[in-house]
């Protein structure tokens, strides 16, 4: 009995010691040594487009000794997850981003590998992409990102069958026509415009476009540079007034705050014919396609955001995501493998696959594949929009640093649901 007691005590002590040692092993030791051998990890925004990324990876892994692993992170939490792992041993080797503001803090913290040496060896890594797009990920003269996926302008999508049934022959070209269409659809008992306000960023798109159409692309640029007085300007109040008018006209129905885009709520409204329009990024196409390919190809319509009479903005201006990028972490164990993988981003296969799901890569060879797109008409329409747009404003929540995002998104959603008025919105934006 006595002996038994001592044994137990000894075991407990050993256990405690082991626990302490394990803990010590967990902490410390960043850098390439602690990274897995023969693997590089890509942190990827998880959505319907991941199939193409996986296909490219499969192609690459077939001949590479070091395997690429795609770590899909659910879209809504992507930015938070990335920020928390970037400065730890669990950081990805390659990570998806939006260029510009989204990688600035990582570059400042010296966590991103400048790609200029790679480009010197293989100039195609730069020259294969449209310069205006490539430059979004150039910071202080150094290149930090290779464009991937595609450019994602926001467009006004519609269910052409619903519009035809309601006697609307063409998508609205002007704001007045949009208000008319809203009235027609509402009278027929259809929600005129689907809005996933539960996600909040779909609401923001309405602000981005209306501010651009009414005040031109200069207002937001000034605000971003720190001139908060623009939010009080006459144009700003006019845009807010028009938004209020649209909401009050019942354009989004009354229950939009309970609907989300990310769980499929608002795309389903459009696809099922319960709504006539949805303002969304170009990924609406691949979202609808993965649910119902026939609907995407035959019924889904699209048009530019309507122009505003007397507005200062060019009617061809776009808002949205200028492009997505892959950047390389400074501590990666296999920089050469990362380089070789990035070369696939301008390969014919990649461009063709992206075009096939409705994405629009911005490589110089994109145009020759547009005929092979799932919907060539859609691909060409989008390509011309981007090519002809005098200004392409990056989404406000990506243009501002991440800490501003919560304030912006809360303000737009509160304005739509009527919790704050114009002054409340202006005050919130001026607090940034």
């Amino acid at each position, binding site marked *: 009995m*006595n002996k038994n007691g001592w044994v137990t005590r000894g075991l407990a002590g050993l256990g405690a010691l082991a626990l302490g040692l394990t803990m010590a092993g967990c902490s410390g030791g960043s850098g390439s040594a602690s990274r897995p051998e023969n693997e590089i990890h890509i942190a990827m925004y998880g959505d319907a487009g991941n199939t193409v990324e996986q296909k490219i990876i499969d192609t690459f892994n077939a001949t590479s000794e070091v395997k690429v692993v795609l770590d899909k992170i659910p879209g809504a939490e992507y930015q938070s997850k990335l*920020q928390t792992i970037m400065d730890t041993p669990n950081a990805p080797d390659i990570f998806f981003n939006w260029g510009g503001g989204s990688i600035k803090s990582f570059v400042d*913290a010296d966590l991103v590998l400048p790609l200029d040496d790679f480009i010197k060896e293989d100039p195609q890594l730069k020259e294969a992409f449209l310069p205006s797009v490539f430059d979004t990920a150039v910071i202080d003269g150094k290149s930090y990102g290779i464009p991937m996926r595609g450019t994602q302008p926001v467009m006004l999508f519609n269910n052409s069958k619903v519009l035809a049934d309601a006697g609307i022959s063409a998508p609205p070209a002007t704001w007045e026509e949009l208000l008319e269409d809203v009235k027609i659809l509402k009278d027929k008992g259809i929600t005129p415009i689907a809005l996933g306000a*539960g996600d909040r960023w779909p609401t923001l798109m309405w602000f981005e476009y209306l501010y651009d159409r009414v005040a031109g692309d200069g207002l937001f640029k000034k605000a971003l540079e720190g001139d908060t007085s623009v939010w009080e300007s006459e144009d700003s109040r006019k845009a807010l007034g028009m938004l209020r008018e649209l909401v009050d006209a019942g354009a989004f129905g009354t229950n939009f705050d*309970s*609907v989300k885009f990310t769980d499929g709520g608002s795309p389903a409204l459009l696809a099922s014919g319960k709504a006539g329009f949805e303002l969304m990024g170009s990924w609406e196409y691949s979202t609808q396609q993965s649910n119902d390919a026939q609907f995407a190809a035959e019924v889904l319509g699209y048009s530019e955001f309507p122009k505003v009479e007397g507005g200062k903005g060019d009617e061809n201006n776009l808002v949205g995501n200028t492009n997505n990028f892959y950047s390389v972490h400074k501590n990666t164990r296999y920089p050469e493998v990362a380089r070789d993988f990035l070369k696939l981003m301008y390969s014919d296969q990649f461009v063709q696959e992206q075009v096939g799901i409705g994405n629009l890569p911005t490589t110089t060879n994109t145009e020759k594949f547009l005929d092979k797109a799932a919907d060539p008409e859609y691909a060409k329409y989008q390509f011309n929009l981007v090519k002809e747009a005098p200004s392409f404003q990056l989404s406000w929540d990506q243009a501002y640093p991440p800490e501003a995002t919560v304030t912006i998104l809360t303000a737009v959603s*509160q304005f739509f*649901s009527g*919790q704050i008025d114009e002054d409340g919105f202006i005050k919130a934006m001026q607090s940034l």
Partner: protein
Amino acid sequence: MTTTLANRRRPTRAGGPEEGRPARRNGSSSSRPGFVWALPATIFFGLFALVPLIAVAVLSFTTWRGLGDPKFVGLKNWESLFQDPVMLQSLWLSLLFIVLGIVTQTPLSILLGVWAAGTQKNRAILSAIYFVPLLLSSAAISVLWRALLDPNFGIPGQMSWLFGDGNVLGTQTGAIAVLIFVGMWQFTPFHTLIYQGAAKQIPPVLYQAASIDGAGTVRQFFSITLPQLKNSIITSVILMVVGGLTTFETVLILTNGGPGTSTTITAFHMYQEAFRRFDFGAGSAIALVLVIISTAISFAVVRVSGYDKMRSSLEGL
């Protein structure tokens, strides 16, 4: 969790080796095992509870975005914390959630628990069914209810006489009601389990005596069952208070703190500051406020209820 483990371990192991332990060893006259016995649990608690707690306390005086090293900024985070209208509102909301949670879950779980402690015919099967929500993860439950409550394709779309336009999650009242309801659906089985175990421990002789005295079922419930469950009620309420303060997944997935900031309870506000705004200093300050409040409430409940004296409810039997 770890403290309860430590407490539980002590008496069970004490019985074994102690009887045979001779008093001669090092002159130890203690009848209880030494500190070494509590060491594994203490180390575990220290590493996974105290160390992070201290780290959070330190972080609350710094500014840190998750990259590089934190910089000390003194009391700045604390000053802005008490001027933040969302923070003050979130404390009221958290309080509301706790109170509504207790009010809805306690009566239901007591009734179910007492019923499940009986010997009725279908009891075992039905109890097993009631138990199911406890087996699901909070995230799964939230996604499930989110889909069920979709205004166009879910239950509200089919029952407009009850839900109107179906904007359940778009109003403050509706969103709070949904969160309370889902919390009730999720956690009632757990508290039922506590009451079932406690109700089974009540000596049948009490009921026999009562029925001889002519007390009916209702009278027996209020005069015997409820008083006998007193300690379990306190345990259950403390768990609800702490659970209510740290409710998070359901808020994140079901309402995202909205509409606007209408359901931004303190725990969600903490997440938002730390992992959306990447202001880990401010997030840590909120975390510390949560720790202080939940500790204070737990102490208060224990004190007021006399739970700390652990008075037996079976005296005289």
